[in-house]
């Protein structure tokens, strides 16, 4: 199997709020985040503290403006839960330290703030990471899919450009493309595919990558489609 997930896995995230607007806002951001980070995500909405909460293991966004604080004591003691407090009340920030949350966000928190919060909770969603597992001669290459930002065909092999450096896989680009989720990956021409998050800008039919300023040509018939995908990607992040 070339493209795999670790056994058992999705990252579990719950949003505990009675405010539907906040739930929809966070759901949209978390869905976009999971797509970009290539994380398999199970997202839940709690409108009250579930009786079965102790079986929950993952990340809990708690809307402190709409739920009852008195129920917090037990949650604080649960080592399997990473708590993120959401509140418009800045004065609550100090009081919230006794619950030992990972962080404190305003309800208007955007994509970047939520992404930073998720970074801090990495051990709690690590099991949801999607992995790339490819052969290289007699060995295997294994890396989190989100670390791949560009791949280039080289005959029957593929050069993988990753955040940690460059490596080679004994696997054709066409086959790799069939295995990757799209978005966030895009086949911009026969010989290249890129992660949308790695694109700094598109100018004159070329993509310029943010990590190494590499210029990737885009095939003429795909320019429009790629422009639309990039706009949608930027819109989701905004």
């Amino acid at each position, binding site marked *: 199997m070339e493209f795999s997930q670790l056994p058992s896995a999705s990252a579990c995230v719950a949003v505990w709020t009675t405010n539907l607007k906040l739930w929809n806002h966070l759901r949209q951001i978390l869905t976009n985040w999971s797509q970009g980070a290539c994380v398999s995500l199970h997202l839940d909405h709690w409108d009250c503290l579930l009786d079965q909460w102790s079986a929950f293991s993952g990340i809990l966004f708690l809307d402190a403006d709409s739920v009852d604080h008195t129920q917090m004591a037990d949650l604080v003691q649960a080592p399997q839960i990473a708590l993120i407090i959401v509140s418009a009340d800045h004065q609550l920030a100090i009081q919230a330290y006794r619950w*030992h949350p990972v962080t404190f966000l305003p309800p208007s928190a955007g994509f970047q703030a939520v992404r930073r919060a998720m970074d801090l909770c990495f051990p709690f969603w*690590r099991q949801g990471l999607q992995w790339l597992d490819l052969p290289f001669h007699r060995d295997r290459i294994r890396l989190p899919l989100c670390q791949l930002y560009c791949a280039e065909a080289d005959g029957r092999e593929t050069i993988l450009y990753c955040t940690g450096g460059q490596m080679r896989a004994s696997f054709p680009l066409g086959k790799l493309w069939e295995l990757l989720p799209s978005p966030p990956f895009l086949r911009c021409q026969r010989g290249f595919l890129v992660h949308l998050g790695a694109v700094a800008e598109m100018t004159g039919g070329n993509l310029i990558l943010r990590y190494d300023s590499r210029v990737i040509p885009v095939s003429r018939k795909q320019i429009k489609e790629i422009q639309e995908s990039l706009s949608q990607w930027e819109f989701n992040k905004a």
Partner: protein
Amino acid sequence: MELSVMVCDDLEEDRFTLARMVQRYADASHIRLTLDTAASGDELLSRLTPGKWDVAFLDIYMPGISGIDAAKQVRERDPACALIFATTSREHGLIGYDLQIMDYLVKPFNQGDVNSALDWLLQNRNNQIRTLSFHADWESVEVRLRDISYIEVRQHTSLIHVDGRVFSTRRSIDSLESEIRSEQFFRCHRSFLVNLDQVSGIQKRDFLMADGTLVPISMQNLARARQACLNWSLEKSWGK
């Protein structure tokens, strides 16, 4: 167990009161305490070395460098040091989350508040603080888990490599492994238990340790060792 604490406050009375509370907590919990105090952020930073303190209590309003700026520098130079603000200020709650401080005590606080903060530290920063005790060459030795590089067995004796020193004990590696019971340690070979935090890479079938030593990986554990090493390095570096 041992705990190293820094109390930084420009007001002598507040500094001593908090230091007394920390001492009382350590006495009641049978913890060996190393307590340092500083009268300013500058004094704290001039004495800071990575790993010196497990936790630092910081006042915010101080002459010279503020507690916020001191916390930023501590974060950069010693990310493992837990930080607790102990202050009259009610205005820095949000920035505390950016600095990943562990607790925020508003003066006047009491012994119970300090106890709760330190209880949390001991329960949740276990890997930083936990120790391993054993008898080595007729003496009783206690070392921090984080300082152990690897453990190997030679001729029914376990050799524990700690910061360039080697302690030998008659305890079996199985018993040491079961006492350590931490994701940070990986049994890569029947005779070797390695601290992943001190691994700098894998070379063929060996772990390359930070000090250049090679620790062998058995053939059957090679794939698991690679995955464990990858998981650990992701956990350490994610988002940084």
